[in-house]
């Protein structure tokens, strides 16, 4: 099926809706209600788990959802360095720039 601009437009609007619902509903629900203490304590652990999952997906999972590290050797090496840089400098910009430079260089070398 060949898509035209109007169908793309429809797709964008539908995507907007499905993107908005999960973002808006929880924020709206807890707007006036008092959030239970246990829920907050649980949410303490959400960011770290989510970021770890996203990184793991980038580094260890292929596009066809198989476990493999063969294609991401430069990224894996750079990741270790990024963790070290982030830990010692606490600088977001420096971590990202060092990481990017290293992946770029390693992709040429390896």
């Amino acid at each position, binding site marked *: 099926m060949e898509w035209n601009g109007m169908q793309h437009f429809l797709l*964008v609007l539908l995507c907007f809706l499905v993107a908005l619902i999960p973002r808006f509903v929880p924020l709206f629900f807890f707007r006036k209600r008092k959030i239970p203490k246990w829920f907050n304590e649980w949410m303490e652990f959400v960011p770290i788990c989510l*970021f770890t999952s996203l990184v793991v997906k980038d580094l260890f999972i292929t596009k066809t959802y198989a476990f493999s590290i063969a294609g991401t050797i430069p990224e894996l090496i750079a*990741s270790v360095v990024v963790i070290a840089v982030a830990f010692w400098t606490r600088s977001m910009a420096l971590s990202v720039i060092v*990481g990017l430079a290293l*992946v770029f260089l390693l992709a040429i070398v390896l």
Partner: protein
Amino acid sequence: MTKLVPNPNESAWRRNFGISFPLDISYISIGIACGILLHAAGFNTFNTILVSLLVFSGGVQFLIASMLTINSPLLTIVLMLFFLELRYALLGSSLSKYLHGQSILFMFLFSCSMNDENYAVNYLKFSTDKKFTPRDALQIEHWTLLFWTLSNFVGSVVGSAVKIDLTVVHFALTALFLFMIVMQVKSLLKVMIAFLAAFLAIFFLVLTKSTLGLVCATLIASFVGFLIDNYLRRRRIKTHHKSRLIKMFKNPAGTPKE
């Protein structure tokens, strides 16, 4: 920029621009890459700008581009996106305690332009900077949205004329997440939970063959972390035994001002 009229709002805008700047920079390359890909998938410039403004998610827009090139039906794409976006329910919930009592319009605007990266920055600022307000958070979202949309527009115009190594560009986001993880790791328990999340993510991603695995891994690992944390805290009250697991790490770069 004028110094004649001292405007407190303007300095806030500029301060927030400074906070969002590392994100803005990483969005330029990935946004241009995304625009190029959407162009290659047949999106015209208008639709590329629109999807950047309304959906504002690198992951989703890359997914749209790749699914369009393999001719997926509309319903499949929308359903996939819904699962990909489902994790924002968790993000929204974890920020909600900082956004208490805001108007519906604010909540609507805030949720429209919330994504992984600016959420991470905002969460970090909310949890470390007491002066950080919901308005500041919304401004940071809008700065990143501006850079994201402009970069997508440039990418769409540049089109297929330029070839960019997307794997290198994509690593900017991975590095950003790694930085966020390091910032979040404040106790031995959190290190262990991060490893649990990593293991579960691999397991569920391979099992579900979709990004739904991210939701499963995040939900389970964070809940296990909460249970252990809760148990250790209770035991501490009862027996006065302080577990090494929940002891806070010393910051190697010095103690941040709370």
